[in-house]
């Protein structure tokens, strides 16, 4: 069996604060296997978003090692990081971040414009992603004409269109009501179960976290608790 999808060893993230440094992450050890569904929880300011951004190569750690599919990515150059983001990672944001005045299909196509795919292949991928998220009939609409849940479905389609191995979602339901939240979570769960896409999700809400297979709890930049659906519960080492 090949190496796990993600391995973190002693990941630290510090920000300069006056004389000394403020540590947002104080040494995170974490292994995420393929097709896992992890919820990251913890109080506000505990470092959840920071961790997710590091996982997504949007931010770089100031200490520790990060192996993505066995390769060390902690010291990659920006261009190579961008390439990895484009190939392996899909982001879903709390605030959707769709381009205004741009049709749904063009929003979904956006990540593909930075790849070498042909026009037909791009169209094919967009069709596929929109269909998966049930948004084909809105493909010519503008984001402003869609409900919040629909916008988030478009954003997930955009995250999927590059066939990523992992989707990182930072409070994807934070702006949605509970019914729509459930709908979005069902989509993510389906992607995880049917397409073996790894999902890492940051959330405050337990009923959202309940969709996942594994939970980790951060506090003050450290993992303080981990649980799995199969009952095993472990404190941080």
């Amino acid at each position, binding site marked *: 069996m090949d190496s796990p999808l993600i391995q973190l060893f002693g990941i630290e993230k510090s920000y300069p604060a006056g004389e000394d440094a403020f540590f947002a992450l104080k040494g995170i050890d974490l292994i995420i296997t393929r097709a896992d569904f992890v919820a990251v929880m913890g109080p506000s300011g505990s470092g959840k*978003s920071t961790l997710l*951004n590091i996982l*997504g190569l*949007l*931010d770089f750690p100031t200490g520790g090692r990060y192996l993505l599919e066995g390769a060390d990515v902690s010291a990659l150059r*920006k*261009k190579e*990081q*961008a*390439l990895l*983001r*484009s*190939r392996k*990672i899909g*982001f879903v*944001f709390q605030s959707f*971040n769709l*381009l*205004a*005045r*741009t049709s749904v299909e*063009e929003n979904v196509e*956006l*990540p593909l*414009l*930075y*790849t*070498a795919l042909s026009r037909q292949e791009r169209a094919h991928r967009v069709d596929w992603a929109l269909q998966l998220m049930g948004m084909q009939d809105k493909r010519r609409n503008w984001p402003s004409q869609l409900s919040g849940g629909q916008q988030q479905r478009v954003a997930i389609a*955009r995250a999927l269109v*590059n066939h990523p191995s992992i989707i990182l979602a930072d409070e994807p339901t934070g702006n949605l009501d509970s019914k729509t939240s459930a709908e979005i979570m069902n989509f993510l769960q389906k992607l995880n179960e049917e397409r073996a896409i790894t999902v890492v999700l940051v959330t405050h809400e337990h009923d959202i976290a309940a969709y996942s297979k594994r939970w980790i709890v951060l506090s003050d930049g450290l993992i303080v608790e981990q649980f799995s659906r199969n009952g095993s519960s472990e404190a941080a080492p």
Partner: protein
Amino acid sequence: MNAWMLLRIALKALVRNKVRTLLTMLGIIIGVAAVIAMVSLGEGARRQVQNEISSMGTNILFVQSGSFRGFGVHGGAGTSASLTEEDYLAILREIAAVKAATPDVNTRGQVVFGNQNWNTQLEGVNEYFLTIRSWMISAGENFNESHIQNASRVCILGKTVADNLFQGGESLGQSIRIRNLPFQVIGVLQSKGQNAFGRDQDDLILVPYTTVMKKLQQTRNIPSILVSAISAEAAYTAEAEIRELLRQRLRLGDEEEDTFTVRNLSEVAGAAEETNRIMTLLLGSIAAVSLLVGGIGIMNIMLVAVTERTREIGLRLAIGAHAVLIRIQFLLEAVVLSLTGGAIGIALGIGASHLISRILQWPTAVSPASVLLSVLTSVAIGIFFGFYPAHKASSLNPIEALRHE
């Protein structure tokens, strides 16, 4: 990822932000068009004056009583000791470099034919005037020597005067009244249209200068004499010799200033050039202000757009674009936008310049320097303010860019 794709991304972004694109372009368009149109106005006037002056021939000299400094500024002395017919005759007689000369005694007067009335310029000249100025007669004939000697009451009409008095009827041989004296029309001048300052050059009547001096004005003074030298080179000798001769005749001491002016055409051209340059500069600065205002407009719009665009940049980074591609995209956007605006501005500026010359009958000439300068300025502004904030944003961490408020 190829160049074509980047251009498409840039074009899509421009289309997506139609209002911003249009407003930004508008700044460039107005700035460029204003500069081109304004400068073409000044430049057109300048060229027309130059043409007119050089078409008069380079061997013409103007002798005027009174001293002029610079452009039309009277000196203190001089008006008492005006030029007379004797001075004119002395110039003709004694200076070898002079080919022909004519007094030019101006006045205005009311002209009547039947029930038609016209107020016009009366130009008292001799039979050489037409040759010196290279003016043509379209009907009838020039003055002859005896007309001048006898102070005959004959006249040659400018086209405008002929049209107004005779309304298309035959004018030759008719008797008109100038200041209530009867004059016989012996000729009509060919039309010359307007001059560079918009004055109708056909609105005048030529009369023997002797007639003006004896019968219309009772004066012995000749305000100016028009001289043509035998060649362009001889004009300079003639100028010096005329000056010497007149100083002697007017008995001016060594320390005294001239009480008259002798100027050749290149000096006149120089003075005219100077005024026109000032006018062009003035128009140019007005236009430069609008270019500046346009530039500030561009700046404003671009800066206002920064928040939205910074988030867009963050998103593009997050979904796998790297910073260099994004910079190229924004640079392309700014270039496309500025160049399109610049091109429209040029077209509009040239169009406006043509329209002005059509409607206001004012000559215009588009100057390549103004086109280049205005386009470079506005394109530089457009590119700088389009690209610089994007450059900064793309150097940001994607998360910071996404979080940008």
